[in-house]
């Protein structure tokens, strides 16, 4: 299992990285944590001629709050997310999800940017980002642009990111104090992708749900934002009837394939169960539970 030959580049700045991407086009690949790309290269399913290692770019590493947004550099690792006091205090959904990704060694390497930009439906962070209404900051030869996470995913390994663009930052509107969120993932073992997983982010006005976002992981060609499930919760007390209706709507959009994680029917049911658990847990947390 030895990868094909490539030339290695380690730019020191985003400008330099973007220039290299522009220069190499489809022959160039960005190396972030490497735990999706390097296995593909070892199997020769990916044979880039140029690898552009972005781990030497300090400006891609930070986690900070600015202008009402949590701003996370694309090369921040899952371990960085778990170690961040800012995220623990303002957006605990992120470390909760990061802790369910892979294992300790891989979390030291794996980056948030790689997890969200790769386009693998098995990755956990796309659904989390959609639930949080995150925005992705992209840089290419033509300049910078922003794409909402909810508009970013077109299909399996098919995203809004152009070949010559680099994801530089993930921008999350800082959730209001009192919000409640949860990510529930069913997996067979540590390090596995989800059999099914769901994120829920809720806010309340008194005892009524004021806003709700529900998303699903690994039960379709990409993460799924279930608009209808949120609609089923807003205005309710998130009682059993509302939760059941929201979960039914989530299951209606789930379209998993049958694989080693189970038949499609089973994985659809588990998507519903993860949605129920995520919604109930998020509601309890919003109410201070």
């Amino acid at each position, binding site marked *: *299992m*030895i*990868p*094909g*030959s*490539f*030339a*290695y580049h*380690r730019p020191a700045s985003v400008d330099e990285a973007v220039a290299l991407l522009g220069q190499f086009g489809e022959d160039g690949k960005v*190396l972030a944590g*490497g*735990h999706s790309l*390097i*296995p593909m*290269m*070892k199997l020769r399913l990916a044979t880039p001629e140029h*690898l552009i*290692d972005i*781990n030497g770019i300090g400006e891609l590493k930070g986690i900070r709050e600015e202008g009402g947004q949590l701003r996370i550099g694309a090369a921040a690792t899952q*371990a960085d997310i778990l170690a961040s006091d800012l995220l623990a205090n303002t957006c605990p959904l992120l470390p909760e999800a990061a802790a369910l990704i*892979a*294992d*300790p*060694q*891989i979390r*030291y*390497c794996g980056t948030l940017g790689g997890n969200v930009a790769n386009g693998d439906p098995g990755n956990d962070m796309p659904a989390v980002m959609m639930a949080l209404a995150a925005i992705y900051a992209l840089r290419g030869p033509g300049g910078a642009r922003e794409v909402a996470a909810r508009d970013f995913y077109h299909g399996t390994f098919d995203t809004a990111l152009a070949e010559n663009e680099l994801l530089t930052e993930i921008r999350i509107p800082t959730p209001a104090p009192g919000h409640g969120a949860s990510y529930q993932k069913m997996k067979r073992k*540590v*390090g596995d992708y989800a059999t099914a997983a769901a994120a829920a982010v809720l806010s309340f006005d008194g005892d009524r749900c004021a806003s709700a976002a529900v998303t699903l992981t690994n039960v379709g060609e990409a993460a799924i934002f279930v608009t209808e499930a949120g609609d089923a919760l807003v205005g309710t007390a998130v009682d059993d009837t509302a939760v059941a209706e929201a979960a039914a709507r989530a299951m209606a959009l789930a379209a998993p394939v049958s694989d080693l994680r189970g038949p499609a029917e089973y994985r659809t049911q588990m998507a519903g169960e993860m949605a129920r658990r995520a919604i109930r847990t998020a509601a309890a947390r919003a109410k201070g539970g």
Partner: protein
Amino acid sequence: MAEKTKISLTVNGNAVEAEIEPRTLLIHFLREHLNLTGAHIGCETSHCGACTVDLDGRSVKSCTVFAVQANGGELLTVEGMAAGGELHPLQQAFVDQHGLQCGYCTPGMLVRAYRLLQETPNPTDDEIRWGLSGNLCRCTGYQNIVKAVRQAADELGQKEAAE
């Protein structure tokens, strides 16, 4: 033949310089270029943790890192754990507690447990299991590995208190 890249790094306290192909994986560099065969090749797919080494204060699976990525870095392998002819307390604890049978996973377990105790000097059993969840052992059922890490944590804690 692809062009070679020069790298320099510190391995177990020793300065190392080499010319390698960029595609050389860190595990192959260690085993074949430096003759450090402590880190093992297990699954080759970043699941088993047998190839775990410590790079710049992080446990990494060296089958899924290129050696060029370690350029300028500080690397610790199981060969660097014993000091002055004495086993590291973790190594002695694996002996005392029978924390291994076939031994294939042991170098990875030791190096990973080393970083775990750096970050969490007095872990609970749950934290030990969580911290070692990226390392598979097919012999022991993990019980004695957890006991060994517990013993080493206690011993290192006592040493620190005495100093």
